[in-house]
């Protein structure tokens, strides 16, 4: 249709593809390139570094030797005082050996993993139950529930940030560290649950009911039929939904900033990276290396998911 038969058409086609792919990948190439460059090389428009610099990665992954910080002699004297409790000594020593410039990337990554994997798991369980119910069982009020799910699915987080924050404040959760973390966890479940239900609902509808019926004829209860027939058949979709929910949690910034900004030890990657960017420790190669490392798990998940997704690619298309 695009006249690919003649030489001119072929060349035009190849150029168009090349432009498209470059447009899509240029920012990624820029991140990778800058993360590997030495500072003197940043202004060089070429994407290929003059020499490879892995310092930023080493630093983020904690592979560099911890710099020995000299404890001043006066302080050392205090530390040698036998009257001081061991605890206090440690606290004082920590003050002098702590490296403020360090960006504890591993900790942030662990936080992100806990939040997004945890929320995605809960979300998957609830959405399997909910999606089966509204797609397979018949009861009054089903249509209303279906439409409500679709509605809440499209209400963005921005409209909920003030009331959710105030609710958390009213019940006293927002003022403590664990309370805030718990709130954020619940919010991630809520943000991913509708998309999971939507995708799974569409999928369950495509599984022939006769299969379940056969299992029930053989003496399975409905519950057993779900576990033994429907779920195994849906494995690829379950994986896709899980990955999808995981990505949503991994990428989330708004609520993390509302609830966790004041608790640096619980920062997730998006929040930590943004804080790093606006702080005095922002150096391009460090930021870019952190970006690459934040990106990597998602790219891997995506490549895994796209293998599962061959069939119903647009199922998740309405959510982002």
């Amino acid at each position, binding site marked *: *249709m695009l006249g690919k038969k003649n030489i001119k058409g072929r060349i035009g086609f190849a150029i168009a593809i090349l432009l498209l792919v470059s447009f899509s990948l240029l920012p990624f190439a820029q991140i990778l390139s800058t993360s590997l460059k030495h500072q003197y090389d940043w202004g060089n*428009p070429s994407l290929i570094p003059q020499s490879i610099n892995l310092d930023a990665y080493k630093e983020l992954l904690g592979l560099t030797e911890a710099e020995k910080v000299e404890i001043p002699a006066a302080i050392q004297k205090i530390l040698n005082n036998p009257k001081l409790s061991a605890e206090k000594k440690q606290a004082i020593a920590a003050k002098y050996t702590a490296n403020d410039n360090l960006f504890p990337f591993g900790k942030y990554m662990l936080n992100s993993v806990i939040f997004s994997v945890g929320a995605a798991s809960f979300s998957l369980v609830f959405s399997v139950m909910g999606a089966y119910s509204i797609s397979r069982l018949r009861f009054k009020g089903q249509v209303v529930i279906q439409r409500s799910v679709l509605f*809440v699915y499209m209400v963005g987080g921005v*409209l*909920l940030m003030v*009331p959710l924050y105030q609710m958390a404040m009213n019940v006293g959760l927002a003022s403590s560290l664990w309370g805030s973390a718990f709130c954020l966890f619940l919010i991630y479940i809520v943000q991913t649950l509708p998309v999971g239900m939507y995708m799974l609902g569409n999928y369950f509808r495509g599984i022939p009911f006769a299969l379940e019926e056969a299992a029930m004829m053989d003496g399975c209860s409905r519950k057993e039929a779900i576990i033994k027939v429907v779920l195994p058949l849906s494995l690829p979709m379950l994986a896709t939904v899980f990955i999808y929910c995981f990505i949503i949690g991994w990428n989330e910034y708004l609520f993390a900033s509302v609830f966790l900004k004041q608790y640096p030890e619980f920062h997730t990657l998006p929040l930590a990276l943004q804080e790093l960017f606006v702080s005095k420790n922002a150096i391009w190669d460090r930021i870019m290396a952190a970006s690459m490392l934040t990106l990597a798990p998602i790219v891997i998940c995506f490549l895994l998911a796209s293998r599962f997704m061959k069939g119903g690619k647009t199922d998740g298309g309405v959510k982002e």
Partner: protein
Amino acid sequence: MTPLERAEARFGWKLVAPTIAILGLLILYPLMYNVYLSFFDVQLNGSKTFVGIENYIKLLSNSDYYSAIATTSLYLLGTVVGTTLLGLAMALLLRDPFMGRGLVNAAIMLPYVAPVISVVFGWQFLFDPISGVVNYLFVDLLGLWSERSNLIGDPDSALWVVVLFDIWKHAPIAYLLILSKLVSISRDQYEAAAIDGYGPIGRFFHVTLPELYFVLATVVLLRLIWNLNRFEDVYLLAPNVETLPIFTYYQAFTGVIDQGLAAATSVIQLGVLSIFIWFYIKKIMKW
């Protein structure tokens, strides 16, 4: 109702109950609570004083609110048109199988799945006034601009950077939606049109476009719904572009905090959003 049906209904409710509880408590209730809050002067620590419709009066007499509406409108216009056109172009280009299509597909889907927080830094670097490739290209190489400029630093040009960013990030999903419809158009229709004497362009307007009408409307509506509330993509790339969500965020959590005013802004925005969603459910939904 037979006992069997009743058992099925009970089972159905049991399965969906946790979902209803969670969504009700954390989405539907907050939306209503938000309306309630919009009539109060709300402090960050949770204390409230009733002020009637004062928040709405304050909001509607605030010129910043109108400029946020204008910015949002431009943002929506730019992103909806851009994403739909690019998505359509991509779908037409990649419709027929060719060698390496899988790889090309993976490459163009990448922006869509990548975390916003990572890719914004790449974009910021590209537009950096000192080291950025964009300035290098337009100033040093092509000579189109007389001097290097900070495109993201200036809110007027930053808006268009943000629009371009959104197109880059979300054209892939438009592409997937359009492609799935495009491949279902039968060859016969094209052959019939060819016999009628239509060239490639004529066939596009007489066969492809009418067939795609519905899916294009879907794409436009979905972009409107998602982009009206888009926060991260704008705030993290260029916090100086004040679309409505960012305006609300600033009211609620930074500077002179006025959560009641933010609630009022959200209420109005929910009203507009509900119209879009109503359209979507009525006209497009497959459920």
